[in-house]
C-alpha cells in the first residue's frame, strides 16, 4: 500500500510503473478526465471503450472482450463512476474478472466513490477470486470524507508493482502531506458517523433530482453511486457544449457537458449533487425554466 497525494497521483504513477511504450490501456468512457492523458504521458496507447446508456453505463464483458488486442495490458475500472453515477454489482464484476483472467490483464480500479453507494454496499473487484493479485485499487479521502483539498489518496496492490510506484512517488513528491495524513487518521478513527450522515444526505438529494427529472420528462437513468447524475439532453438538438453554455448564460447555472468525459458523453450533461438541497432546488427551477424555453423554441 502507498499513500499518495490524492487518488490522482496514484492513477498517474500506477500507469507509469506498469506500462511499457506501445502497451494498450483500456479506458471505459464517460469517465474521469485524467486516465487518458496519464496513459499517454506514460507512453501507452489509450483505447477507449464507449459505455452505453442502455446498459446504465456499466461495462459489459462483451464490450471488454471486443476491445482487447495482444497489446492490451491494463483495464481501468472507474466505478462508482464520475460522471454517470453508474455502479458495477458483483455479478457485473464477475463477468469482467473472467475476461481479465482469460487474457492475463491487470486492472486499475479507481474506487474513490466506494463509500457513496446508495442501494447496496460497494463491491470491489479485488473481492473476486484471482483478482487481488492483478489489481491496483485506488481510493482516498476526497469523496468519502469530503477532504478534496487535503490531497490524500492511496493505492493498494501486489508488492512488486507498489514498489515501483513507490520509487516514482519518492522522486517526484517525497511524501503525501503529513498534516493531511494525521487528519485522515482521525477521520478513520472517528469519522464513520459523519460518512454515514453524508451518504444519507447525498441519497436524499439524489432521490430529489431523479424525481425532478421525471417531472420535467428529462430522460435519465437512476444513478446508484457517486454524487453525480447524468441526464440525456439529445431531445433539444443541441450539443452538450451548446446546452451547457446557453444554460450558463441564460440561467447562470453551471453544468459540465458530457463531452468533458469522453466523446461518447455527447448528448449528456453532468450535474453534481455535492451542493445543498436548497441550492439544488433553485438550480432545478432554473433548469425547468430553461428546458421549457428550449422545447417552445422547437
Amino acid at each position, binding site marked *: 500500500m502507498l499513500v499518495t497525494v490524492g487518488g490522482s497521483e496514484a492513477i498517474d504513477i500506477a500507469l507509469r510503473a506498469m506500462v511499457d511504450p506501445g502497451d494498450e490501456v483500456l479506458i471505459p468512457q464517460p469517465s474521469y478526465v485524467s486516465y487518458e492523458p496519464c496513459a499517454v504521458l506514460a507512453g501507452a496507447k489509450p483505447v477507449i471503450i464507449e459505455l452505453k446508456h442502455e446498459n446504465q453505463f456499466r461495462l459489459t464483458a462483451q464490450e471488454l472482450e471486443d476491445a482487447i488486442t495482444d497489446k492490451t495490458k491494463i483495464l481501468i475500472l472507474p466505478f462508482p463512476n464520475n460522471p454517470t453515477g453508474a455502479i458495477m454489482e458483483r455479478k457485473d464484476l464477475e463477468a469482467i474478472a473472467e475476461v481479465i483472467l482469460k487474457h492475463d490483464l491487470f486492472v486499475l480500479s479507481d474506487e474513490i466513490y466506494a463509500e457513496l453507494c446508495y442501494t447496496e454496499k460497494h463491491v470491489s473487484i479485488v473481492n473476486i477470486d484471482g483478482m487481488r493479485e492483478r489489481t491496483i485499487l485506488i481510493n482516498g479521502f476526497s469523496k468519502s470524507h469530503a477532504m478534496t*483539498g487535503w490531497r490524500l489518496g492511496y493505492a493498494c496492490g501486489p508488492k512488486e508493482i507498489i514498489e515501483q510506484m513507490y520509487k516514482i512517488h519518492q522522486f517526484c513528491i517525497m511524501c503525501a502531506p503529513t498534516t493531511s495524513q494525521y487528519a485522515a487518521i482521525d477521520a478513520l478513527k472517528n469519522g464513520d458517523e459523519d460518512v454515514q450522515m453524508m451518504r*444519507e444526505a447525498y441519497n*436524499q438529494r439524489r432521490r430529489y433530482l431523479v*424525481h425532478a427529472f421525471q417531472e420535467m420528462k428529462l430522460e435519465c437513468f437512476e444513478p446508484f453511486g457517486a454524487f453525480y447524475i447524468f441526464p440525456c439532453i439529445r431531445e433539444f438538438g443541441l450539443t452538450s457544449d451548446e446546452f451547457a453554455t446557453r444554460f450558463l448564460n441564460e440561467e447562470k447555472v453551471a453544468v459540465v457537458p458530457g463531452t468533458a468525459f469522453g466523446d461518447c458523453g455527447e448528448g449528456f450533461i453532468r450535474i453534481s449533487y455535492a451542493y445543498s438541497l436548497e441550492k439544488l432546488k433553485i438550480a432545478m427551477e432554473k433548469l425547468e425554466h430553461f428546458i421549457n424555453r428550449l422545447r417552445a423554441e422547437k
Partner: protein
Amino acid sequence: MREKILSIIEKNSRIDLRELAIILGEEETDIVNEMEQMEKEGVICGYHTLIDWEKTNVEKVSALIEVRVTPQRGHGFDSIAERIYKYPEVHAVYLISGGYDLLVSLEGKSLKEVSNFVSDKLSTLDTVLSTATHFILKKYKDHGTILDKKEVDERIQVTP
C-alpha cells in the same frame, strides 16, 4: 422511516410533505400517516418557530433560575415542578443533577417582571428553599441554530 423523518423535521418543520416523501423514497401517504401516529404518541410534541427577538422591536428578558426545593413524600419533585410549570411565563422546567434541583427557564417583558415572578410567585412556594436567578445577556446559539451569524466573504481565497 421514523428516525429519518424526525431528523429532518427537527431542523425544518415546514418542509413540504411531498418533498419529504421524495427525498426519503417513501409514499406521501405513508409519511402523513407516520407523522400523525407520532403526534398521537407524543413523539412529536409541537411545531415551533425559532425567533431571535433581539432583532425585533419587542423587549424581552430571559432568565434561567436555579431552584433548590424540599422533595415531598410520595411525589418527589414532580408536584412542585408541576406547580411551577403551570405558570404561563415559564418556558421550561428541568430536574437537574448536582448543586440544585430544578432549572426554570423564564421569559418576561422586563427585569422587573422577572424579579417579581421570582420574589412573589416562586420563592414563596413552601417547598422552595432558595433561588438563584441568572439573566441571559446574549443568545449565541439556540436549538442547534447559530443566531448571531458572522458575515462571511464567499470569494474563494485559494486555487481549488
